[in-house]
């Protein structure tokens, strides 16, 4: 078995909304392992807090409880829940990628540059970075006429491909994927599955949210099923 690069133990996330004086439970008591060159699938009903696990690992959310032990490229182990902000930014730049369901990019930025952005950040020369972006976009059969325009006006499926290409391009050590094939037609989904297999073979560890049992069956080395978090009252008792 490949060595684990991420071990999540007892992760929980709830939101404290001050204005309404409300506690919103999101994820509860999640434990999982992700190994290099393998894919761990997160499954479960809507509202079980799957995305919130990914966001907690990426520090888009501050975890409410739990440890997230990550082994970096140099072999150092650190708890992502406690790591400093600059440490997290450096990991995001060099090691950890996240493909969300949303695409935030600069207005008017050409698609090719949106996709090449992670390589720009690593100091890859622009022409080379753009070439690699072009290769990836053509592998995903995004029509070439779209490469020079901003993804702002793209359809859901086109945007998703841009998002995936941007997540794949730097071949991160750990890649978080939030429903990577959700709005793709079967042919494009097939192509994305092929790219994910390629990344796995290259050693990338992946944690992915899937909804289709078929995709899970084909790609996952491990499956973690999440149950919805307990009701607020139960949660309050636990915290107290």
């Amino acid at each position, binding site marked *: 078995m490949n060595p684990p690069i991420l071990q999540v133990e007892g992760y929980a996330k709830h*939101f*404290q*909304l*001050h*204005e309404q004086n409300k506690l919103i439970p999101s994820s509860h008591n999640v434990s999982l392992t992700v190994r290099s060159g393998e894919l761990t699938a997160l499954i479960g009903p809507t509202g079980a807090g799957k995305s919130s696990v990914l*966001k907690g690992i990426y*520090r*888009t*959310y*501050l975890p409410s409880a739990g440890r997230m032990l990550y082994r970096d490229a140099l072999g150092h182990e650190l708890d992502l829940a406690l790591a400093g*902000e*600059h440490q*997290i*930014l*450096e990991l995001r730049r060099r090691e950890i990628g996240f493909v969300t369901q949303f695409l*935030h990019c*600069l*207005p*008017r*930025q050409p698609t090719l540059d949106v996709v090449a952005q992670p390589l*720009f*950040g690593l100091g890859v020369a622009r022409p080379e970075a753009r070439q690699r972006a072009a290769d990836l976009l053509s592998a995903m059969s995004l029509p070439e006429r779209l490469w020079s325009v901003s993804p702002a006006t793209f359809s859901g499926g086109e945007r998703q491909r841009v998002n995936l290409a941007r997540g794949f391009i730097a071949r991160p050590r750990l890649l978080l994927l939030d429903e990577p094939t959700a709005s793709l037609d079967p042919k494009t989904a097939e192509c994305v599955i092929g790219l994910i297999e390629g990344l796995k073979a290259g050693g990338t560890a992946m944690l992915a949210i899937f909804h289709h049992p078929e995709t899970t069956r084909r790609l996952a080395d491990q499956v973690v099923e999440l149950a919805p978090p307990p009701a607020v009252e139960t949660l309050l008792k636990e915290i107290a």
Partner: protein
Amino acid sequence: MNKVLEVRNLSKIYGPGCPHCIESTGPEADTNLCPHCGSVVAIHDVSFDLFEGEILGVMGESGSGKSTVVKALYFDQAPSGGEAIFFDGDTQHELFALNAARQRWLRNHRFGMVYQNPNLGLNFNISAGGNIAERLLMSDLMDYGAIRERAKALLARTEVLLSRVDDLPKHFSGGMQQRVQIAKALATQPPLLFLDEVTTGLDLSVQARILDLILEIQQELKTAMVVVTHDLGVIRLLTGRAIVMKYGRVIETGLTDQILEDPQHAYTQRLVASAL
């Protein structure tokens, strides 16, 4: 990664100040005006670090003190307390302990500032090229031909039409004035740049080009920047980390996406929820 700036406990009080100023102001007191002596506590106890190539956002509503932070660091206004260390290669400068001449030197050579109001950053009575030449002269470049070439290259870089190099900035559009200001700020290739509401009041399309330009500069020159803005869109697109201010105090700091998606403080939650 190298640290560029370390700010500790920065404060600025306008007015006489009294022993009650601090406890009677801030987010809990819901004011920055001291009821005992009438002083304004513009900022108090502001601390942060900035690394090479990093863009830090300072967000908050009008009156939160966010502009005062950069104005103090750029020596526009002397702070009432606190310290700031600027790391320049192997040299460390304790900013507020320097004499006026040294402060001016840093301002002209190693820092850049872009103001919301181009009036503050540009001399409207000399040409666009002249504005840049002025900064180059202050930084000891003396050869006329070299200065003119450099000014042209900078204006081309910030997409100002070269045919207008000799025109007065007061005849330029707002977006173009901002680009001249950025060119001027970049003239000495400073490792540290302050941007104070630079896109506020510009057309959306012009805003986009300015944001583009700022990010390109950051990636190309590894310039560290402090971006002051009340615009959450600008914060999201430009910055990696952000601090949130209210009534002169820092109430929250974090990674930008975390502050926007999982804000912790009641005020930040309201601010983020109110964004269009």
